[in-house]
């Protein structure tokens, strides 16, 4: 299957296979007017299989969200058909309005305009803590 390269925009590479739809959802790519290609299960020498997302727009993407979905993703910025910058990611310190606290006793359950803020507590286990009620969530709870 061939998908054209892009002239200007962003290529999100090395996405763990199966996570491209999460990237699409949490970066709100459905709201874009420009072309977006989502490629699943590409062959990868290193990863076996991987997903790729190509966005033909120089978008200010939320690297924290992306790092949370998969810290192994590489972000390639393309200008005039050439890569001008490559960024690697890590798990973000703080996540705002990505996760939702599931504790029914949390203040965010009744005051829904409050930002949902989580801070990292364990990088190896990808555990985050609600800054209000201290409830711990794991990364796989994102869906």
């Amino acid at each position, binding site marked *: 299957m061939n998908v054209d390269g892009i002239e200007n925009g962003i290529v999100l590479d090395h996405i763990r296979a199966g996570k491209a739809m999460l990237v699409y959802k949490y970066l709100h790519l459905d709201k874009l007017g420009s072309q977006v290609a989502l490629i699943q299960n590409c062959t990868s020498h290193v990863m076996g299989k991987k997903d790729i997302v190509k966005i033909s727009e120089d978008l200010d993407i939320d690297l924290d969200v992306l790092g949370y979905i998969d810290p192994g993703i590489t972000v390639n910025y393309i200008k005039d058909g050439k890569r001008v910058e490559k960024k690697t990611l890590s798990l973000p310190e703080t996540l705002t309005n990505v996760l939702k606290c599931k*504790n029914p*006793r*949390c203040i965010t359950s009744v*005051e829904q305009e*409050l930002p949902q803020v989580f801070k990292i507590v364990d990088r190896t286990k990808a555990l985050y803590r609600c*800054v209000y*009620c*201290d409830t711990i969530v794991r990364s796989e709870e994102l869906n």
Partner: protein
Amino acid sequence: METNRRSIINILDLSVDELDHLMDLADDIEKNPEKYQDRCAHKQLATLFYEPSTRTRLSFESAMLGLGGQVLGFAGASSSSASKGESVADTISVMSNYVDIMVMRHPKEGAPVVASMHTTVPFINAGDGGHFHPTQTLADLLTIRRTRGSLSGITLGLCGDLKFGRTVHSLIDAMLRYPDNKYILISPKELRIPEYELDKLKEAGVEFEETKSLEDAIPKLDILYMTRVQKERFFNEEDYLRLKDTYILTPEKLHNAKSDMAILHPLPRVNEISVAVDKDPRAKYFYQTLCGKQMRMALILYLLGLDK
């Protein structure tokens, strides 16, 4: 240290030096009440109680009045603007313009974090759901220090609801900062202490044991901290009814206890301590409320910068 606008949400918001300073101050308040009786003259404390808590609210009010200050506030969400749907943030922003220091109890966990983001005056959490209640822990610490002479080298028994009992978790967090203490955790398996709290004991490398038997544990204890099985923490009435009478402290059970053991309870009790125990000199749970008032006085003075 910068104390203006300081928020005390969790007992760990206070350093060990600060805890020791507050306890010293409480001791001085007890010895020389007249020295402090006008210290907060013309200062106002707001008590914002979104759920009922007669004891804690009156303790704060009594503390502020004992310092010559004034109090205003509400007791219950129905008598506040929360019943009209006002957010915690808005209430706190408004109250910041009225008073010099604020105390809040709220049924939702994390409400004090929201308050701390919006207050422009010192703020004290007086309990947020099953989460934190730092001034209860201040009362517990002072009671232990006064009855044992120290906060170190103590075998502390915690009995009852160790799962939902926030006072138990806060007390462990605070006592772990003092050396050479041992912990005996007495509860039915359904109300065992949560894993994250056990992890803290393990990480600290302190001696601890879990048991279901109060009788087996009691001879070893310097402090017995009893707790109530709280109905409001259960989603299911059946579970509550099954577990509420698991541990009842009676004079008979105290036969094997040390003669200088102290019995503490955050109150209110339901039936977990028999009334017959009240006459025992080891019963310190009413004295604990006096310690609580004096620690609240000390904390108010400290946060207002009026402790010196």
